[in-house]
């Protein structure tokens, strides 16, 4: 095992995949400046700074992906994806289908998301659900260093466009990462903790909040199962449903706003497919439907914390 931050794990994944496959390249605003080890090893053709123009960064990745390369682009912060929506949604997500299968789009977009830096709503906005709602895309959002590495490697090898969201709050928290070559499959959730009383489903940094809540609940004699989605699209429906069939109670946790979020999707899934197993209402613990405030005290109040999860479970378990 190595101890790496997710930032380092991402660098390792990029370096390993670029070594393995000469068609992998990376570009974005400041990529060559900031990922110095990568640009030293792979040179200016494969690690590139770009002009400040997200639409053409994404479009160039899409065009290159369709014609033989496997680009990874860093779009910095999730709200900047607003400039890149046409390339991602209308081109990468649709042109395979529209063309009757003539093209594939093996590309990865990286973007940081979520609170933790206190810079407000134009840097901190969790929009992963937009891409879950859009056809032809895959969406990944890891919660620990090992998954950052293993999922990114798989995303790079996948022949479809993958949105890879990096929860900013996790980026510099060290974690254990297996030493050798390994990958983590897309579309497979991880049961982080087993329990019979309630299922907590989360992703990104909300997984840690659920783990913390589960520890508190354990002290109270309640056994919470914690599921880390890891991939938001395709969703690991089987793991979620199996857990809810076991526990009969479901709490969904994410920082993204509630309406039409990933929690809504999972609640709907369970209400459709495991209705009979449900012993209690489903509960969502999410960020509010508001822009993210900059002020540290408000940003803290914005992000779902363990105590809110504990309180929700207590209400459910009566």
């Amino acid at each position, binding site marked *: 095992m190595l101890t790496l931050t997710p930032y380092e794990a991402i660098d390792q994944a990029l370096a390993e995949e670029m070594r393995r496959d000469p068609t992998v390249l990376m570009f974005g605003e400041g990529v060559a400046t900031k990922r110095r080890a990568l640009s030293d090893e792979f040179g200016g053709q494969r690690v590139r700074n770009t002009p400040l123009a997200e639409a053409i960064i994404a479009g160039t990745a899409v065009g290159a992906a369709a014609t033989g390369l496997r680009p990874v682009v860093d779009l910095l912060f999730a709200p900047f994806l607003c400039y890149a929506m046409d390339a991602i949604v209308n081109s990468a997500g649709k*042109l395979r289908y529209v063309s*009757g299968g003539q093209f594939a789009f093996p590309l990865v977009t990286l973007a940081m998301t979520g609170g933790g830096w206190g810079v407000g709503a134009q840097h901190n906005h969790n929009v992963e659900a937009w891409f879950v709602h859009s056809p032809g895309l895959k969406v990944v959002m890891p919660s620990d260093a090992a998954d950052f590495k293993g999922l990114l490697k798989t995303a790079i090898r996948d022949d479809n466009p993958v949105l890879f969201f990096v929860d900013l709050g996790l980026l510099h928290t060290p974690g254990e990462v297996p030493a050798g070559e390994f990958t983590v499959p897309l579309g497979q959730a991880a049961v982080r903790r087993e329990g019979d009383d309630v299922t907590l489903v989360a992703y990104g940094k909300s997984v840690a909040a659920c783990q913390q809540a589960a520890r508190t609940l354990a002290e109270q004699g309640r056994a919470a199962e914690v599921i880390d989605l890891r991939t938001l699209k395709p969703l690991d429906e089987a793991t979620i449903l199996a857990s809810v069939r076991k526990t009969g109670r479901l709490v969904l946790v994410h920082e993204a706003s509630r309406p039409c979020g990933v929690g809504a999707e999972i609640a709907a899934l369970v209400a459709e497919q495991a209705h009979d197993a449900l012993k209690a209402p489903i509960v969502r613990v999410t960020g509010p439907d508001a822009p993210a405030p900059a002020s540290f005290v408000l940003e803290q109040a914005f992000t779902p914390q363990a105590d809110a999860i504990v309180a929700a479970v207590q209400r459910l378990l009566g």
Partner: protein
Amino acid sequence: MKPTHPYSDPVDQLARMLLVRAYEDRIAALAAAGPFPASCPSAGQEAAAVGVVSALGADDLILTNHRSAGHLLARGADPGRLLAEVMGRETGYCRGRSGSLHISAKELGVVLTSTIVGGELSLAPGVALARSLLGRPGIVTCFFGDGAACEGIFHESINLASVWNLPVLFVCENNEWQAYVHRRETMLTDSIAAHAAAYGVEGRSVDGNDVAAVHAAALAAAAQVRASGRPFLLEARTYRARGHLEPDDQSHVDAGELAHWQARDPIALARERLIAAGQLDLDGFARLGAEARARIDAAVEFAVQSPYPDPAELLANVYA
């Protein structure tokens, strides 16, 4: 009639223009006759399409947009498979999933067509980057309209191609219209090629209704892109002879403007030049037209006989 690329015989070029015209005339007739899937006719712009495409080599790639029939036919597309696509048939180039507005034909090197105005501009630098990095031959030609030149992505695309030394031949078909808006309502200056200089790119405008002039300019521009590995912006000044979408009565179009450009019909200009040069006579011209129409007859027949996609395959090809 799949040409070897490039093709420089002016009679071949005229024949190709006539095929495009016959194709568009037929679609207009079908659309006028009753419900028919939407399409954006390229009639009037045949010289721009044929002039550029005939200057490209077999390894070169083309990105195009909603008004693509000229580019596709000039490249050697089968009009039957095009019409089948327009009519939503399984035998179309995109198995009926595209319809008329975003037809790609990878086998012809026509890739990643987007009907989002500017979509093709966003994709072209990446296609060129892949060719450069993979050491593949050929340049990338990207067709777009004067309207697309109003989208910010035009600016981002040409700038990136310039900064990264990408072999992209940008071809703006400036046809004076952007759907229901006249170009003069959308920009104060007259030339789109004039933007090139601020990006360190060479730009040039050419009479887009003169196929020989377009062909010569495109050959020179493509040669320069090939030699330098850098972009070039070629503007073909032409005119959308029919409405934005079939059918359209063009009631919002100034009659004088229409008449001015009708008098500059690219096919008539090419015909007169060839006749004056003794390379063609009226009989020959009539024969070329008849051949083109006969191909389109057969194409319609093929399309109409073709099956619709199977709804059971509704979800095929969402993911690789």
